């Protein structure tokens, strides 16, 4: 990551022409080639930016440093650096990515590790069970050995029921799995989604995320 604070003017030409007159700005050049020009305000949105892949050329013209940033669509950002106040580079390494608490992947992971919470005697066959129309979140066998496809959502809405219905239709074509029943599991399930699921013989399951994580509330409760 290279961070340059400089008094600069910026010109963009491409889908339209735009000009940023002379001012002190932060120019951010990321390792993947993204270039963003920021003012000292606003949360995240740069004044101007070019997404990678870019070609960046640094050169001098009329005694001033210039950068031209060009992408595959021939859009071009020209930055005239009148005075450089700071120029800092740091190797940041690979980013592990954003991990959101409570997202479906974590719910899936927790439920896969605790399939007996779905139903007593349930065993996990596989997480992300592959099918030609996409992976089923969990494929399990219940206590009677019947295959059960589990679709996990944070918020259970009709789209999720439709998705599980498609998986069930597909899985039930497989003679080795047939009959396959369905469980629609979510932290909350909308009434319409519940009605649709139950109408299609799909069981609805509310996931208590805190309980799955083993977190006990400090609140006193009757149940």
């Amino acid at each position, binding site marked *: 990551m290279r961070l340059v604070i400089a008094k600069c003017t910026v010109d963009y030409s491409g889908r339209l022409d735009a000009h940023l007159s002379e001012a002190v700005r932060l120019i951010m050049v990321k390792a993947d080639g993204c270039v963003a020009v920021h003012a000292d305000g606003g949360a995240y949105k740069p004044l101007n930016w070019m997404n990678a892949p870019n070609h960046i050329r640094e050169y001098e013209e009329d005694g001033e440093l210039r950068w031209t940033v060009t992408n595959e669509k021939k859009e071009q950002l020209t930055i005239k650096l009148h005075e450089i106040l700071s120029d800092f580079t740091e190797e940041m390494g690979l980013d592990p990515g954003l991990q959101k608490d409570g997202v479906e992947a974590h719910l899936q992971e927790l439920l896969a590790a605790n399939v007996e919470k779905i139903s007593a005697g349930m065993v996990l066959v596989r997480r992300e069970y592959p099918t030609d129309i996409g992976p089923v979140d969990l494929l399990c066998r219940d206590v009677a050995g019947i295959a059960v496809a589990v679709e996990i959502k944070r918020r259970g*809405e009709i789209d999720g029921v439709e998705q599980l219905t498609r998986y069930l239709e597909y899985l039930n074509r497989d003679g080795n799995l047939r009959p396959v029943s369905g469980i629609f599991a979510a932290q909350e399930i*909308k009434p319409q989604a519940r*009605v*649709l699921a139950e109408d299609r013989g799909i069981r609805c399951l*509310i996931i*208590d995320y805190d309980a799955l994580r083993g977190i006990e509330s400090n609140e*006193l409760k009757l149940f």
Partner: protein
Amino acid sequence: MKFRCERDALVEQLGTASRAVSSRGGALPVLTGIHLAARDDLLTITGTDLEITVRASVSVAVTEPGEAVLPSRIAVDIVRSLDSGAVEVEVSGEEAKIVGGRSQFSVRTLPVDDFPVLADPSGDEVTVATADLAAGLKQVVRAASSDDARPILTGVLMSAEDGGLRLVATDSYRLAVRDLPDATVLSEGQKVLVPSRALDELSRVLGESEEVRVRLGEREVTFNVSVKDGEVQVTTRLIEGEFPNYRQLIPSSYPNQLTIGREPLLEAVRRVKLMARDTTPLRLTQKSDCVELMAVTQDVGQAHEEVDAQYDGDELTVAFNPDYLIQGLEAALGDEVVLETLDALKPAVLRSSQGGDFLYLLMPVRVS
């Protein structure tokens, strides 16, 4: 379809049925609409979100029988905005005309064929005195949970108890139990879990009628009530699942008993609650001849009040969510109530000092 009726009657019944209409149709946009069926000088208005269905009927002068689905909110707003007097509704093609006085509206209808066909109620009909049921629902329904994460707690348990009917609801912080000894709705040992939202809607229409007709089907329950302008029918799916075993939480005796005037305590709690902001609990210190109420909110202030009472037990401070305590006191019967406690962390019981058919179990709040 074409009919004519009084605006006041129509607005009342439209408003009642529209309360069950889904705010977002989801996969079935027609569910945002209200179904009108006019025949034999009777208009039947139906709103549903597939979980709760409210059907309200009103006498009208039908010129041309038929049915239509109108966008619920706009239809209700239009009729409500009209002056009292005759209203005429005429539907032709995909347009409904609503005329009242010198006002005229035309509204695009929703496809009537998409509206779900709702099954007629099943099960034998039994009747319950409206006054009993209304009082019971008022005391119990508010204790039910509104959190869909635990759907069973969003229901009110109706169970047969000693030949009568018992209503039980809990949100896991408090539990309300009301016995209706004269209401024979269920057969011995039978119990059903009815969505509290449906019972809330039912409570709204229980007015001047003397009795409620109840039909219990395999998966749904239907309540019929005669109202001023016609008839209202509330049908709801039953909640499947096992209601928590609440009986085990009610000890047969308590070492500490506070006997106090219901109204003076209620008023004092309301006053002291003014300083119990957000989740701040209200502390009750029970002494031999009084109870001290106190609420402290950091950086805001505190409130303190003493109320005369008769207390039998060791001096004990116990804290409650003030809203839950207020609701329990409002629901309790009689001039005097008894608050029974074991310790500061175990559920307390609130009931009338004369005994009676209502019990309110309230979980304390942990305080340092």
